[in-house]
Every structure is written in C-alpha cells, then in structure tokens.
C-alpha cells in the first residue's frame, strides 16, 4: 500500500466564515449546519492537472488580447505560489479576472455606469514555472460601487483562482493594492478575521520588477494548504 500525503488543516481565524452579515449576500447562501469532518482520501489529495497545451500564448498578457491596447495604467503582477512549508507549487494553473480601468466588467450583470473598453476583456491565465513563479501583464483595475450597503465601493482587486496539487488545495481569492483606503470598509476583505492574514491578500509594490519607461510592478505571493512533514494516511 502506498502512503498518501496528508494536508494540514487551516489555521484558525485565517479563513472567512460562511455567515458574515456585513456581506449581505451570505445570509441566504451559507450552510446552517456544521461541515462534516471526514478523513482525507485519494479523492481529496488528487486533483486536475493542467499544462501549457491548455493555454494560448497571450493568456497571461491582458493588454495584448485585442487589436488595440486597453486604456489605463499598465502593470505587471508577479509572484510565487508556495505551500505552507514554503515549498514552491510548480506547474499549477492560475486564472485571473478583473474590472477595466474604469471599474467596469464586460458582464451582463454589471450595471455600473462606467465605460466598457473594447480592448480589454479582463481575463487571464498562466501556469507556474518549476519554481512556482508566475507573471501577468494587465492594467490596474478601477474601484467600483456595489449595492451591499449605502455608498459601498469595492477596493481595486484582481480575482485569482488556483488549483494546487489536490482537490483540497483549491483556492479562489482576490489580490488587493497597497494603501487602498477602501480596504478597511470592504466586507470581502474584512471577512478574514485575523489582520495579518488579511494583509497577505494585499500585494506589495515591487520596484525590482518595475520596467523603466513601461510599467510598474506589484508582487503577490499565494500560499496553498501544505502537507504534513510525515504522511500519515494509508491508501
């Protein structure tokens, strides 16, 4: 019998609760019964594998997906995907989506009175390299209003979706920008109880990767659930 890897549980207060009244839509969409805790099996420690064959060459450059360049400030978003042990997560799929520079999504549900940009779709994807590194070229997304509460505005953000190595390492999160005054007013951001854990969703200004005369850079490292040092489940 093969020994299977075993993944650590989340540290308390580093993940949002399902029921979070400050974010009104959680009211009818959170489970009211406690989750049923079950052992990790082969079903949970495996997960879909993606490769470069799944991608198009311009998938990680959101400024080159149309005839013209999108309006807004061009930025680079760099980072690494790591596990909790600090090990890189190589060859894993990252998907992103975001509003345009005016704070508008090309989506039928977005009724915000801000212009669409025919040169910006706002979706990208890439696969981390052998050292867990990734890079996107995009434009800085705009803030936009939403109807959660009176005068509610989302801070500028980029949605990130990651798979990692297993079904249970799946993560959807959002990247924020440093110094954004809307962060402390934002129910999504504030749904993570521990302040230090919240701050890890805020990218940092990345002078090293800034390209002179071309684009500023931001760094956003993402940490996925990590394995125990010693496997303890048996197949």
């Amino acid at each position, binding site marked *: 019998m*093969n020994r299977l890897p075993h993944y650590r549980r989340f540290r308390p207060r580093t993940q949002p609760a399902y029921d979070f009244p400050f974010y009104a*839509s959680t009211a009818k969409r959170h489970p009211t019964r406690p989750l049923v*805790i*079950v052992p*990790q099996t082969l079903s949970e420690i495996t997960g879909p594998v993606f490769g470069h064959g799944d991608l198009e060459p311009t998938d990680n450059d959101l400024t080159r997906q149309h005839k013209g360049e999108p309006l807004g400030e061009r930025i680079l978003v760099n980072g690494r995907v790591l596990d909790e042990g600090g090990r890189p997560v190589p060859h894993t799929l990252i998907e992103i989506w975001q509003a345009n520079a005016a704070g508008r999504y*090309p989506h039928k549900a977005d009724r915000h009175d801000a212009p669409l940009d025919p040169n910006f779709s706002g979706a990208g994807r890439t696969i981390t390299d052998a050292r867990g590194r990734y890079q996107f070229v995009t434009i800085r997304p705009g803030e936009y209003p939403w109807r959660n509460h009176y005068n509610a505005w989302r801070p500028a953000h980029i949605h990130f*979706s990651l798979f990692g190595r297993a079904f249970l390492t799946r*993560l959807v999160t959002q990247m924020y920008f440093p110094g954004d005054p809307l962060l402390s007013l934002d129910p999504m951001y504030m749904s993570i109880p521990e302040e230090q854990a919240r701050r890890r969703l805020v990218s940092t200004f990345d002078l090293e990767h800034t390209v002179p005369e071309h684009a500023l850079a931001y760094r956003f490292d993402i940490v996925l659930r990590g394995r125990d040092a010693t496997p303890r489940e048996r197949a």
Partner: protein
Amino acid sequence: MKLVASGSQTVGPYLHIGLTWLNRDRIAGPGVKGERFVIQGRVLDGDGKGVSDALLEIWQANAAGKYAHPDDRQRKPLEKGFRGFGRIPTDAQGRFRFSTVRPGRVPGPGRGLQAPHLNATVFMRGLLKQLSTRIYFPDDSANAEDAILKRVPVARRATLIARRRARGILEWNVVLQGRNETVFFEF
C-alpha cells in the same frame, strides 16, 4: 509550517469572465470506458430560489477507479485524454447539467474501498469560501459500507445520493439551507 495558507474570497458575480474558458460539461470524452450518465439539478438558496451565479467543479476517477493524477499510484488503466475534471456554471434558474461515466471504486480511508462517487466543489457570489461535497449513485450496494457516508448522520445521507429520473439521467441538487440542506465536508 513556515507560512499560513492565503485566505479565500468569493468568486463574486462576474466569475464567468475568468472561468468560462474551462467549462467542461462532458467530463468523459468518446474514448472513455464506462456506464454513461447525465447528472442534472439546481443550486438553491435559503429561500428555495435558484442561484444563477454559481459554479460546480467535478473531480472524479475513471470507471476503473483511477484518478488522472501522479499521487494515484494504483496499477489500473487510465485512458489517454481522460482528465476527470468538469466545470459547470448554473443558468438563470440555477440549473446545471453535465454528462460523465460512473467512476470505479477508489481506496481509502484505511484498507477499505469507497463507493463510486463524484467530488464536487461549489462556488458562488455570496459564498466567501468554496463548499465541498460528493455525489453518490442510487441503488449502489457499496454505499452502505462507504466510510465517508458513514460519517454523515443517517437522516442527511440522502442529500449526497443522486436520484434516478429516467434511464441514464440522475438528479442531484445543492440545497444551501433548510430541511434538505446538502451535507458539505471539511477535510
């Protein structure tokens, strides 16, 4: 552990922009062996209304009970091109539908075998982190000995077992709240 896992955030209402490219409602291609099924249902909120901005992801083994993943070291056949992954958004009424093959039994926990099941992850606006659940098959004698189902209170097990609607068509719903609230797992 040196680092702490990043916090989850909702997919929000515009999830389709980033995720639609990978939609797969036919999980098993033409060359994949096994008994074929359509699974259909709805995602329902606490008022019983369909959730129009939800997304299901399915992860499953092939008919031999093998996952297309390097950590599955079983000596079992795996069809070339079988990934075992599906991604299905709900429609305006909260409905979803996908087709696949019935997976074989996979090992664990311990020395036992699990009953055939699909692993399902649910995302939606208003959900700050994903929900994980399973879809089992009706009238499968292996369900009675499945170690995961046994952890679920008897009265709630039916929420994890699809119902037969017609030949080759099963129904399974995601009920977020209420009397028939779906069982969600934490691993």
